[in-house]
């Protein structure tokens, strides 16, 4: 990739095929375009009977092009066309003040705050569990089965119980949602960090022993830094899971704010476009969060001597 990005040689399509920009983005663009095309076809096919039924009920004559145009502009389609979703998304992000109840920004911030709090709680809890497991065989044997069991129960069944129990002891609003989100996301962190804390080379552990380092020094100067790559790998998994946890936690509460509430309201009133716009918002949030973890990983990696 040494050639200049913008130097297009006069000689032909062959050179264009090897242009760095083409090499880099062509596969992604192709996939996206193919998906959008498939989506449009699916939208036409799924909404066809709905639109035809509408025309027939009103007994107006229609042409094929009117019919197809109708499938892409229905108010409550089975499957909204991509441009409808994007229009609704743009409208609800930029069309209202960020504090208005119709603004997706408002709902996203509500979900985001529960996600972040849940993520921090889950990460701390997960790392704490991993520390206990690594340092005590007894704890490993007694804790690990419960940790695994905790992830076998569907969260959709657990979430209402959590909300009710926590509500009974006076916890409402952000915290119960964060706890559900933390409950989901601590697991990959615990598993990852147990692996990470035991990652040091036996030779490195022997070295610490020859210097008669205390267990705390071994943790701080060897086990912890050795676990950092594992930490970031599990954080990336955990942060998306904690977003899902926060959204799921918003469903049973009948919460009036948050992406989950938006999804619920959309399905109550058959507002499919609103559902899809909310889904798009959660996808944007998730990729933003992963991007953030990714960036932190890169910065930390540079300081810890990772090869560029």
């Amino acid at each position, binding site marked *: 990739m040494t050639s200049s990005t913008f130097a297009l040689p006069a000689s032909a399509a062959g050179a264009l095929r090897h242009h760095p920009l083409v090499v880099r983005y062509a596969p992604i663009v192709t996939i996206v375009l193919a998906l959008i095309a498939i989506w449009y076809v699916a939208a036409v096919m799924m909404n066809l009977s709905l639109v035809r039924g509408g025309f027939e009920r009103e007994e107006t004559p229609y042409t094929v092009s009117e019919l197809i145009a109708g499938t892409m502009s229905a108010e409550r389609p089975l499957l909204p066309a991509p441009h409808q979703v994007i229009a609704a998304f743009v409208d609800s992000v930029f069309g209202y003040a960020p504090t208005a109840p119709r603004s997706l920004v408002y709902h996203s911030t509500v979900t985001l705050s529960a996600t972040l709090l849940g993520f921090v709680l889950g990460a701390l809890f997960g790392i704490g569990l991993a520390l206990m497991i690594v340092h005590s065989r007894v704890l490993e044997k007694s804790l690990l089965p419960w940790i695994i069991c905790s992830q076998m129960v569907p969260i959709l069944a657990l979430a209402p119980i959590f909300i009710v129990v926590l509500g009974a002891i006076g916890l409402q609003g952000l915290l119960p949602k964060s706890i559900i989100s933390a409950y989901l996301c601590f697991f990959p962190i615990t598993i990852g960090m147990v692996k990470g804390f035991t990652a040091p080379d036996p030779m490195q552990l022997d070295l610490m*022993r020859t*210097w008669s380092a205390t267990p705390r020094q071994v943790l701080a100067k060897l086990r912890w830094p050795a676990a950092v790559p594992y930490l970031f790998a599990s954080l990336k998994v955990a942060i998306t899971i904690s977003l899902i946890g926060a959204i799921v936690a918003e469903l049973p509460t009948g919460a009036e704010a948050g992406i989950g509430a938006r999804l619920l309201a959309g399905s109550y009133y058959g507002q499919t476009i609103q559902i899809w716009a909310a889904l798009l918002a959660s996808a944007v949030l998730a990729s933003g969060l992963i991007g953030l973890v990714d960036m932190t990983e890169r910065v930390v990696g540079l300081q810890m*001597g990772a090869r560029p």
Partner: protein
Amino acid sequence: MVFLPINISACANIERAICSGVCHYLPMALQMPKSLKPDTPGVTLRPRGRESLVAPIEAVRMDKTADATAEPGSLPQRLAIDVRNVSLTFETADGKVDALSNVSLQVADGEFVSFIGPSGCGKTTMLRVIADLQQPTAGTLLVNGMTAEQARLARRYGYVFQAPALFPWRTIEKNLKLPLEVMGFSDSEQRQRAARYLALVNLTGFERKFPWQLSGGMQQRVSIARALSFDPALLLMDEPFGALDEIVRDHLNEQLLQLWDKTGKTVLFVTHSIPEAVFLSSKIVVMSPRPGRIIDIIDCDFPRDRTLEIRETPEFLKIAQRVRVGLRAGHSYDE
């Protein structure tokens, strides 16, 4: 204090045997360790300048309290290592393995002792037992007059492993500082020592580099500097140059020898290579596997400031030949 006395009668015999040109294998397979007990104090006076050792130690040592070997009263009879009838048996799935069987060895202060033998003869285990990384199942073991555990807790030795085992997330300087951090040296002391020992292994200028940016030989030099950085009187080296090519190895051998000459440390050195053992050592311990035991101890009296050229001399070849015979005898015992 002009002479360094060695109170090992068997070695005196070997020395005489070598000196008189008689070089045949002495069949002392298992009797050898018993005859090493210092209750038969045959003292060899070796005209090796102790003074020339003492001065550089003083120059290098910063923290005198960290080094108890300088008590003047205890110097003459001082043993760095005193291993008596040590055995170590591993329980494995296939049954018991005798890694060490009734091994005895005495090493005086300031000696360079090489352990040589085929794989599985217990040379690494020997070093690990001395370092208290493994505990013997029988026998007694004193390091600088302390038990192995006390010596480890008092940080009396530096250990160099087969691989550099640097911490990849630390720069070279910070790798050097790691044992100093663990041991609670002050910041300025850490900085001074890191600079001094990097200079000692010719790596000044690489402070800010990370381990992966250095070659294998350079990394191993860093690990040697790290082992020296807290100035232990005893250096345990487990095949430190095993993974390096011949040229780098020769170079590091010379550097190590100069270092030993300069600092007067006691060095225990595990190797597979006969020339390396003969070139470096003041004493060579030949070991044999299944069960791991000492079959010969050979004194090697080249001057401390020897150069690579001595490898061409007849004396060198004679000792190398004797090591080879010992190794072969250990193997045939097995068959």
